[in-house]
């Protein structure tokens, strides 16, 4: 036989081959370990702007990412969802952030194709300042809509007293506070009120900016929190962490199953689990008024809005790298600031979207 010698026919050659393969495996393993311990490398600067709702977490994420990727510089300006989207449209920033997903009409009006990546889940709470009342108030959906429509004007309204039986509420006017800027938090709040109140849906509707029937405006979540903190008898709406850190009392809200539920890391994930994708790959979802037994009803996904392609490939690579980090490692930091991590299925689809976007 003149064919090539078979390895199995030569035990010595096979031993050599085995040794060689083993050596290669060790070498691959060693190189893998070395790469894993090296800091990630990415050159470039990214500037983002938008929602104040997730700002405390994005600040933390950027600081942590900066430790892992020393050459990268990411800046984020909390100027409100609406202003952030406009800045991205004008090409003044590299990415935007919003708690209100863009509609099809908004998407088609963008000069370049953008993708929306959900990052975490947060809750909007009715925060109040009632001097002399340290207890926790309860609100029904109808009460919140009526207060913001201006049909309930005083704290001692019988409808408020009916659900807060043990508290002697004061005979003083409710000073309503809302956002003055174009805001994703306003979108979440008005989206919820539109779902629970036909009167609100007809008269005001859901948007990042609405014609408020009553109240005074303040800019950003921080602005509303400060306004509530300094105004006696006020009621406003802010993202959960702003109420917690701002020493604000916040109420429990009755959910669809009839339970009064406060925002927490037990009730927000319950709401997140109720997500319903309109179609595969489209991650725009509303989870307000979720059906879960202990679901907090005013919860929302918040999003990064990112161009599908970057003229500067280095920026594109850095954006992808940051998004991947945020959707994996970053998720584990979210609870430290009261945000719920994305449900596994949503995170998976978001990662797939990034894979296809850059």
């Amino acid at each position: 036989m003149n064919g090539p010698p078979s390895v199995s026919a030569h035990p010595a050659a096979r031993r050599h081959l085995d040794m060689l393969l083993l050596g290669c495996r060790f070498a691959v393993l060693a190189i893998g370990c070395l790469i894993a311990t090296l800091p990630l490398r990415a050159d470039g600067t990214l500037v983002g702007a938008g929602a104040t709702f997730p700002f405390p977490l994005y600040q933390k994420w950027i600081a942590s990412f900066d430790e892992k990727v020393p050459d990268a510089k990411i800046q984020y300006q909390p100027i409100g969802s609406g202003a952030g989207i406009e800045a991205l449209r004008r090409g003044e920033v590299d990415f935007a952030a919003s708690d209100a997903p863009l509609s099809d009409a908004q998407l088609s009006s963008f000069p370049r194709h953008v993708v929306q990546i959900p990052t975490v889940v947060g809750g909007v709470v009715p925060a109040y300042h009632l001097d002399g009342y340290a207890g926790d108030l309860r609100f029904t959906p109808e009460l919140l809509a009526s207060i913001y429509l201006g049909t309930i004007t005083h704290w001692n309204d019988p409808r408020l007293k009916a659900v807060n039986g043990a508290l002697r509420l004061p005979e003083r006017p409710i000073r309503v506070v809302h956002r003055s800027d174009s805001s994703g938090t306003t979108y979440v709040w008005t989206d919820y009120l539109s779902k629970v109140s036909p009167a609100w849906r007809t008269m005001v509707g859901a948007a990042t900016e609405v014609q408020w029937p009553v109240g005074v405006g303040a800019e950003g979540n921080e602005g509303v929190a400060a306004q509530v903190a300094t105004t006696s008898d006020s009621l406003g709406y802010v993202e959960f962490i702003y109420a917690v850190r701002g020493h604000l009392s916040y109420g429990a809200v009755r959910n669809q199953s009839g339970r009064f539920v406060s925002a927490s890391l037990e009730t927000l994930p319950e709401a997140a689990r109720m997500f319903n994708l309109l179609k595969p790959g489209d991650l725009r979802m509303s989870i307000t008024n979720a059906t879960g037994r202990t679901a907090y009803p005013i919860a929302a996904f918040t999003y990064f809005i990112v161009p599908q392609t970057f003229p500067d490939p280095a920026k594109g690579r850095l954006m992808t790298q940051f998004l991947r980090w945020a959707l994996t490692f970053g998720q584990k930091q979210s609870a430290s600031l009261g945000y719920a991590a994305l449900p596994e299925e949503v995170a998976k689809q978001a990662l797939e979207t990034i894979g296809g976007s850059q």
Partner: protein
Amino acid sequence: MWLAVVIGKGISEAAAPGPMRLLHRFGAFAMLLSFGVAVLAIGPHFRVFVEPFGSKSGAAELRSDLVRRLEKEPRVALVSDPGAADFFVSGEGETYIKGYVGTNPRVRYLNGDARPIYGGYLSVEVKDRAHDTVWSYLVTPRRLGAEDINSDLTGQVIRKLMEAMTLPRGSLKQKTSSQ
């Protein structure tokens, strides 16, 4: 060997007189106890370094309370050298008095018997040796007017924190992402 002794005791006990039987039982109990202690000692141990919790009002007390609870955990060894730690626990917290409630419903004003109602929060993060966050959580007071706000907040965190450190890394990733 212990098992053999216990089995041996079972065989020999029937033939032993009253006081000896008692002694055998005591011996068997002591051996079982030492076996249990040994199992606990063999189980996974975590060397934990607890970082400062910041300078906000009540943060130091929250840290002390959490440290006290961690000291009671048999599988945790607190270390003072960060270089020797398997896990790093960092935290941020604050406690304050939100207001007072009178204890006498007949009195419309607050008197000396008024009870404080506390507000606050505790945020805890666990990092591994590579300084990657493996778990985090935030709690707010659970019970209205809790007498001991520190105990309320750290009590809510400790069980979840121990679960986070006990889980194998793979399951931890899964658990965190599903939260």
